[in-house]
């Protein structure tokens, strides 16, 4: 099965509202990274966490390695937040520096 289970697969929000995306991990992960993929296909770094919580503007992310999950909260959603969001995790195995990606959440922000 997938090591990184991301949900929901799709989400529609009205401007000004908020929601949360979640990734569950089936194995111990050392760190998690969240990306937004824009319409050009570029992967934009949002957060990199080895533990705890980080906040940047209207976005906040938490990584709980003990309980094997990470969340990305979006508040006061804007039209430019539309895109596909991916979580990706670094395996905790020594030397395993590769990222394992979730399947993504397609986020649509409606006026």
């Amino acid at each position, binding site marked *: 099965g997938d090591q990184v289970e991301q949900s929901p697969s799709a989400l529609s929000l009205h401007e000004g509202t908020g929601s949360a995306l979640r990734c569950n991990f089936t194995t111990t992960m*050392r*760190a998690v*990274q969240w*990306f937004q993929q824009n319409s*050009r*296909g*570029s*992967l934009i*770094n949002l957060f*990199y966490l*080895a533990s705890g919580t980080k906040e940047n503007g209207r976005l906040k992310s938490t990584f709980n390695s003990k309980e094997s999950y990470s969340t990305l909260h979006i508040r006061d959603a804007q039209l430019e937040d539309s895109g596909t969001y*991916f979580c*990706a995790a*670094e395996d905790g195995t020594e*030397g*395993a*520096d*590769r*990222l*394992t*990606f*979730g*399947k*993504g959440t397609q986020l649509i922000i409606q006026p």
Partner: protein
Amino acid sequence: NAGVIQTPRHKVTGKGQEATLWCEPISGHSAVFWYRQTIVQGLEFLTYFRNQAPIDDSGMPKERFSAQMPNQSHSTLKIQSTQPQDSAVYLCASSPTGRGNQAPLFGEGTRLSVL
């Protein structure tokens, strides 16, 4: 800082031809990663170099795919005898060391279309 540079941005090949994709990592970054993105499989790890040495190629298809990093300023991904199922966006990323607390940064990718 121009970020990770990938060339070409788009490549179209005929079935059976060879394709070479180029990546220039961020100056000073010693770790270079290759990933592939398709609609069906999503984003998949292919291979990884640190200080130009191959570290992990566990995601590379066993046949037709190879990657090199001849110097610290570029890496190449070569696909021989391309097949339609090789069509994908190939993404390169670099990070300062490839170790924890240093997030890899991605290039804009090369979209490969095999006809």
